[in-house]
């Protein structure tokens, strides 16, 4: 199974992802420069966190026009897995692969913390390593991570069970107090209708290394590996 991690100028979590997929999980992984367009060797495309193209204008707004994103859109439409983390999630919404938008955090400040999340579904290859309803703790680090969508879109997301991760308290309740950034419906991560494109603000790659204490993100990668023979 081969991971491809996109590198835009300004990406800064690209190597963190490579560390997990290749350094820890021993999976072949390739960094993909933003000007490349051939993704034929890649099974899972990952769009990492960072500040693509400086995030001038709007987070992810310029990245969507890059050659690599055109190929990523084809990759997604072919039903292959695409994961966007943090800035990657923002890029996915800008590129139209996921609905809604990520806006400035409610308190207007950047937030770096560890956030408890409730896993809403475990019937997707992204989350099959978790129990449904399980509370996991994953680091967050963003200034513009407040999920927004209009009422119709939100209803669709909920009706189709596209919300995968929700900010919650230690007991799993998605309370207002446990919402770090003001996301509507406490949304931390969503997938597309087909379930092959996942965008999430929390960083699972920062919670996959025992040496750093927190490993709740590892099940996402491991679940993916178990599913891959079927997907490839």
């Amino acid at each position, binding site marked *: 199974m081969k991971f491809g991690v996109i590198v835009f100028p300004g990406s800064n979590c690209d190597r963190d992802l490579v560390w997990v997929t290749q350094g820890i999980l021993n999976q072949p992984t390739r960094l993909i420069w933003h000007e490349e367009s051939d993704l034929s060797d890649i099974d899972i495309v990952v769009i990492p966190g960072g500040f693509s193209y400086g995030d001038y204008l709007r987070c992810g707004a310029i990245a969507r026009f890059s050659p690599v994103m055109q190929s990523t859109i084809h990759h997604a439409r072919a039903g292959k897995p695409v994961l966007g983390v943090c800035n990657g999630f923002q890029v996915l919404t800008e590129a139209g692969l996921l609905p809604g938008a990520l806006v400035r955090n409610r308190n207007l*400040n950047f937030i770096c913390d560890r956030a408890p999340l409730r896993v809403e579904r475990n019937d997707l290859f992204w989350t099959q390593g978790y129990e449904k309803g399980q509370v996991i703790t994953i680091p967050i680090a963003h200034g513009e991570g407040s999920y927004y969508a209009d009422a119709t879109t939100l209803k669709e997301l909920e009706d189709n069970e596209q919300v995968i991760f929700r900010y919650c308290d230690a007991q799993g309740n998605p309370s207002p107090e446990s919402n770090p950034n003001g996301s509507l419906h406490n949304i931390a991560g969503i997938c597309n209708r087909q379930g092959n494109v996942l965008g999430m603000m929390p960083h699972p790659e920062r919670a996959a290394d025992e040496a750093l204490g927190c490993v709740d993100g590892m099940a996402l990668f491991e679940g993916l590996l178990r599913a891959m023979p079927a997907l490839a």
Partner: protein
Amino acid sequence: MQGFMTEIAAAPFSAQEIASEGIKPDEYSEIVRRLGRHPNTAELGMFGVMWSEHCCYKNSRPLLKQFPTEGDRILVGPGENAGVIDLGDGMRLAFKIESHNHPSAVEPFQGAATGVGGILRDIFTMGARPIAILNSLRFGTLDDARTRRIFTGVVAGISHYGNCIGVPTVGGEVYFDPAYSGNPLVNAMALGLMETTEIVKSGARGIGNPVLYVGSTTGRDGMGGASFASAELSKESIDDRPAVQVGDPFLEKSLVEACLEAFKTGAVVAAQDMGAAGITCSTSEMAAKGGVGIELDLDLIPARETGMVPYEYLLSESQERMLFVAEKGREQELIDIFHKWELHAVVAGTVIEEPIVRILFQGAIAAEIPATALADNTPIYHRDLIAEPPTYAREAWNWTPDQLPPCDLSGISIGGQPLSWTDVLNQLLDAPTIASKRWIYRQYDHQVQNNTVMLPGGADAAIVRIRPLADATSSSITPTPSSLTKGVAATTDCNSRYVYLNPYEGAKAAVAEAARNLSCVGADPIAITDNLNFGSPEKPIGYWQLSEACRGLSEACTAFSTPVTGGNVSLYNETLDSDGKPQPIYPTPVVGMVGYIPDLSRIVGQGWTHEGDAIYLLGDGLDADSTALSFGGSEYLAVLHQTIAGQPPRVNFALERSVQAACRHGIRQGWVHSAHDCSEGGLAIALAESCISSDRGATISLPPLSARLDQVLFAEGGARIVVSVDQASVAQWETYLQAHLPYHWQTLGQVAASGSSLQIRADNTSVLVDATIAAMQNIWSTAIERRLTS
């Protein structure tokens, strides 16, 4: 006297124009002597910035000479862009601290942001990938609206730059004191892991080699920032916004990658970042260090605005720019790398044999100065030290604890208000200097790069795993998780109230505390970088403070075998009040120390870990005398009694070394489960913080004591560390202490249950302090935020 008056009289500039470049009359005379003629405007500007304290250390150099700079692990000491130490196994760490005080006073966000950008450039210029940022910040008090604006702006600026560029901000320190109301201190320290085989140096070599200008464009921003940083802040200079640079972390992120890629080609002979004094500083320092000259054509420099004159090109401090000397014939290879990262890269000059800096503009020579006149053989002022300590210090030393109100088991009555010891504890927990800094570090991405082993607030020092990375173009990551057992710890420290009261003892205490903080996580102290933030050295008191502090730093660095590998000097940290009277800051020699951790599985934090663990106090005992354990300069005296007086605690090097060694040994044996030093707020605050950090309580019983109870609970100093020890290891631990730290340890009590309280009893009966963790947590964790929103 006669001499320079005639020079000035004959000068093509008015005395005012000369003074506005920060050049004194006798310095002007010296410039004319060196050149054999009067300088032109561009040259005068170049001398102005290069002869500023910021660039040439004309006041501090004689004092800095005494610092120990050599040691087994030191690969590069002072004089390069950053120091480099050897961590073994081919791993080398570059690190450095730098100030951005004056820009942050004027424009807090950009001032702080470019401070971070500047220190990161110093690191990657050496061929190292930045792996961590720390910062040392000083502000006025948060009841002042302007201070709140500066504080929130500085935090946002650091957050913006560090987060975008993807380097974790993992630690630091923040103090609030009226002494910094007009002149905040923003010191940023960065660490980097060498990625190139050769350490990239800055001395130009190879006559005929091309000189490359790379990175961003040159504009009029930051004009003369180095001179601006070397003068007092006045009401007018607060409006001097053009002297503040504007940063672009996105460009710098690309610059990091492009530079490291370029260095790995082997085609770069020398490199220097353009920080203070931009093109002037980089050309003259690179030329002077290499014993050669550089000819540079300003017409080839990518400009961001039109109509700039040589003076502006030469003094611009536009950010994210570097100067390279490349191997002749390989320049295109380098240019291609920078173009790939969408950055400028042009051949703008040549290394020449004649040791001069020659600047061309529109086909003519715009400036021509001997390189050493700008960068090496610069003015030095040897100032006279006052014969005895200044009056303010002697008066402060006259203070004795007898001047405090009496106290007993029930507490102390201050200004007619009776306070229990729990009340006093709570007031100290509410002091912003002691309170939780979470509001700040939550805005810093402290986990990017996946190596942050210790989260901010979790321990006395930051800990980062050492993990070499693959380069930008290949995805080959060599190390396996299990082979990565090593780490570095880092801390920044300075209790400037101590330094103010006694610069010599205070500076020693800063080094001792840094080494103690590293020891508290299990790291071996290795080397320091220092940031000397002081007032004007031209005043007898200012120079006395600087000189005494340097003497203290020097002795302490020798005592702890932690050589100085470089740093930064920021003088003239004074604000002229509305009456034009200068108000200096407290003298603040910030010590940034790095330590080595051989085994990351043997580290500890400051919070308790197991109920029932035995709590010990290492270092001076509960009834230590008042020279070691002092009220002088303590947070207790300042916050509760509004008094800044006394002698700060005296550092005992031998005891410090033994206490720190014992702590490290206990951690590495696995006996010690937590360690936290007693600093601001003394023993009681250290205990409270270990409780809050872990949400576990503690039951402490104090033996009958003759000392005042506030001395026992809140006095500071004494080389003290509070540790908690595994019950099963108590016997081994005590045997060890008996042999290696005789008479300097005692048991205090036990770790209690989660969610319980901190109880301190005297004579086994009377309860001195009884505070639930929830109550302490509530005060401590909201103290800063509450002051910002009220």
